[in-house]
């Protein structure tokens, strides 16, 4: 089978990889480019652990082919903050919104998208909007707290 050379900007740096058409983006990132922030929980688009932003949109990277992502810009949880934690990450820490941490990089990336697009969200809306991310540990209560807290911090930052 043919292989394709693809170029991606991952967390700000340009990277290339030679992949088969069937290679999933999550494996391009994890195996070819050594970025293991996105995790694999189901490989079938159900759990959201592999969520990254692709050209600013949240995607499940186990349901995108590497070749489809050629020329795009990918942001992972590893690239979200350089120094201090991003306010969303800080809020998850503050509110104990994680236990084993396996779902966390994906959940953080979905929250990023959510809070980029919405400022005011009820608790029910937060739950509904994050339904693409499964967490088996927390029961979501503290995840919702974390998203509320992050929304407040980001709101304050915006108005400052």
């Amino acid at each position, binding site marked *: *089978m*043919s292989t*394709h050379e693809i170029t991606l900007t991952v967390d700000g740096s340009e990277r290339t990889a030679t992949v*088969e*058409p*069937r290679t*999933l983006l999550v494996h391009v990132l*994890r*195996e070819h480019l*050594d*970025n*293991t*922030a*996105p*995790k*694999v*929980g*189901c*490989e*079938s*688009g*159900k*759990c*959201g652990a592999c*969520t990254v932003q692709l050209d600013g*949109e*949240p*995607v*499940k990277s186990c*349901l*995108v*082919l590497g*070749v*489809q992502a050629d020329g795009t810009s990918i942001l992972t*949880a*590893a690239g*979200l903050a350089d120094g201090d*934690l991003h306010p969303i*990450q800080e809020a*998850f*820490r*503050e509110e*104990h919104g*994680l*236990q*084993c*941490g*396996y*779902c*966390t*990089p994906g959940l*953080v990336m*979905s929250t990023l*998208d959510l809070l980029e697009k919405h400022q005011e969200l009820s*608790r029910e809306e937060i739950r509904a*909007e994050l*339904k*693409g991310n499964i*967490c*088996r540990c927390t029961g979501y209560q503290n995840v919702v707290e974390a998203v509320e807290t992050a929304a407040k911090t980001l709101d304050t930052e915006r108005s400052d």
Partner: protein
Amino acid sequence: MFPPQFEYVQPDSIDQAIAALASDDTRVLAGGHSLLPAMKARNASPESLVDIGDISALHRIDRDGPENETVIGAAVTDADILADGSLKRNAPMVHEAIAAVGDRQIRSRGTVVGNLLQADAGADIPAAMVAADAMLTIRNGEGERTVPVDELYEDPDNDHHPAAITNGDDLATEVRIPDVTGGAYLRKTHPATGYALVGIAVRLVTDGGTIAKARVVATGIERTPRRLPGVEERLIDKAPSSLPDQTVRIADPEPAAVRADPNVSGPYRHQLLESYTGQAIAVASDRVAPGVVRMSSESREAAPTDDSVEEASDPTRVAGMPLKRREDEGFLRGETTFTDDLKRPNCAHLTFVRSEHAHAAIEDIDPKDAVGRDGVLAVYTWNDLAASSSPCVLPISTGGLEHDVPGHPVLAQNRVRYHGQPIAAVVAEDPYLARDGAEAVEVTYKVREPVIDAVEALGPDAPALYEDTPDNVIATAAVGDERATTRAFEHAEVVVDISLRNNRLIPSALEPRVAMAVYDASRDRFTVELASQSVHGHRSKLAKTLGVPERSVHVVAPAVGGGFGHKGHHHPGEAMAAWSARELDRPIKWTATRSENYREGAHGRDHHTDAELALDSDGTMRGLRVKTIANAGAYGLGGSAGMATRYGGLLSSEYAIPAIHCSTRAVFTTTAPIHSYRGAGRPEAIYVTERVIDVAARKLGIDPISLRRANLIPPDAFPYETAVGVTYDSGDYAPALDRALEAIDYEERRELGGERSDGRLRGVGVACYTESTGGGHETGVVRVHPDGSVAVYAGTHSHGQGHGTTYAQLVADELEIPYEDIDVNEGDSEEVPTGTGTFGSRSTIGGGNAVVQSAQTVLKKARTLAANRLGVDPNDVRYGSGEFFAPSVPDQRLSFSEVAGMAYGWGGSGTHRAGLGGHDVLRTGGDGVHFRDPRNRGGDRSHNR
């Protein structure tokens, strides 16, 4: 799961795409969110895909044409059109259907047109498009045609959907949606799959104040969208404001004709249909006749406030302080290493060929197609394992079993006893190639009769799994006093009975099972890194499976993504990885897919129970009699087969029940092995007791809370020995019950119970729970470095519990040094020589007390060192706020770090062994947190409240 190989083209014009589609076995790739999952599941294996994502003409969203319509190109994603807002304004019903699809991530890739064409049962967009009278434009080499969307679904029995796409080179280019303001789409979402159980699109067109045209289209109830003409007719000529928000009776289709699936029955789906149709009609009529005040059944109750009672904590102690967890930063940045994140040079990948049958003899395994393939290094079967020095059978504890049954072989020995049992192992250069190789292996089965249900497995004609266990019963046991219980029932004024099923559960930690094995031939030593709740447990089990001494196996668990019991058990994957690493002299990685994780087990529970409760007519409990048949699955894993027979020890729960008898039989079936899952026997027992109490409350007409309260073990009865032989040291249950009731606003919720106008039923249930935790031994090590900083090690292993924070808090309090100076390490079988692990709510009791005791040992030794330096008797040395001092030497104080330095440096007294550390192996029980009572089965069980 990986897609099979295919060719890929990404044309940039419609014509190029159509030309590319003309070749055989070629499919359009739009968002790929249906096609790629289908390919991974091998439900589709096209030779090539034509990706239409780069064709700019297909990205258009257009309202500029002469008609009042929105045109959406075939590459437009759900997220694109939702953000654009055109449909929100002009066809809110369609907008709502698109917004209901999947989740944010799915919507940012899935296309509107792809969804229309895929039209899964329960898909959202097709129903709304049919209700909107949308039109689809299709092009191929011969030209262009436009078809009404509902024609796509004309033949619901046609598996090849959509019916209107007939030519191989058909490319749908756009969909046109007329403006429809009077419409709404509502759905009932399945909480796990996220798909609609039922979705309903309602569109109303009014003329002169009454409804002139109605379209009511349901999704989910049949294979394709289904119009409900009966409901539509009833709406004609009605004034929208006259339509109440209530359940609509629907005769066509009738309940029995509605699609059933493993999630819901047809009649239940029909009930949902009636309820949601009513609600959707109400919303749609509001949109055609705004401003009408309607009685809504959806009046939302205020979410119960979460004012959980704050415990007063001791401000001088670190334990109990709400610290941010120190583990979290690495997780949040995606930097913490889990096993699947590990890379080893020259690593090869292992995958399994698994049984497609629950019960079969294996007649032949033909690996020849696999072996020749690119990148495939080896294909192993049982014969290869049998020829090696290793037993390759997972150890089974035979204690308490009635028959001498074999353990689970790493690869099947000519017979498979559950669907998913590993038959062959394929090792290849990468996981994709390993999977390709596994698919090429051909297995010939002679299918035998399966038996899935434990009760059926006891039947006289049931197939036997093992020749020397003809009745399939592997263990029988009883707890409690049978005679006393019989007597209690003979004298009972009231007896209630129930039959219940504690259903089988699949533990689903988000991280699947995974192992990385390395073999060092020069030392004949395995290093196995794996997702484990118990590195020492895995070390001893792996050593047995591999037939090597424990010293030859080093087990390391990096960060573990959840366990729930599953990762405490020994499975074929890690054993096969280690065996192959020795065979091929290469690091071998094995990562289970989600479905493998489901199929292989160990699963939890699966009890069939008959229970009877004897009471006086005033509700006083007199006796409880329980008979349980427990499914053990196909093989014993460790102590799993006998495990269920011990579950009755918690049946008394918090109640003073004078006589209890529980008999249990554990039975083999052709299903995945059962082992301990979340609570392992405790929830099963509590469920039995609490259910039978509820049934009794109903029969006696007593409030279920009052019945419980009246039978609680009174506070003055402790220590209390239950009728199943467990002694509780203390308890005061009524205040706890009161607090729980207050926290959930019990009275208020009870009043909300009953049937609502939309057909939904509500109620409130309460259960009480007593736990037994903390069995086994545990190791805690505290090592003080010469600079006074401290490293803590334990035999437990956190998989979300946050021991790195908890243990540091405990040791900080004990040593009175800053929390920041303490580092916690777990998950390495060589850092501490023995340990039990993290499960059964035992870590803080076992590991926590062990590290505390070790810290106390450290202080004791440090005190002696300080006494030498201060020139006083050790008994006169005081320690406070990190300093040693003696009242008799008022001007001299020694800091903790100074004493640590003394322990290692020159000038010690010479009477002490160098170094400062504590190493305690604690058998749980013995200090103030809990008690040890030899009467409690084995003497190492402790009970707390």
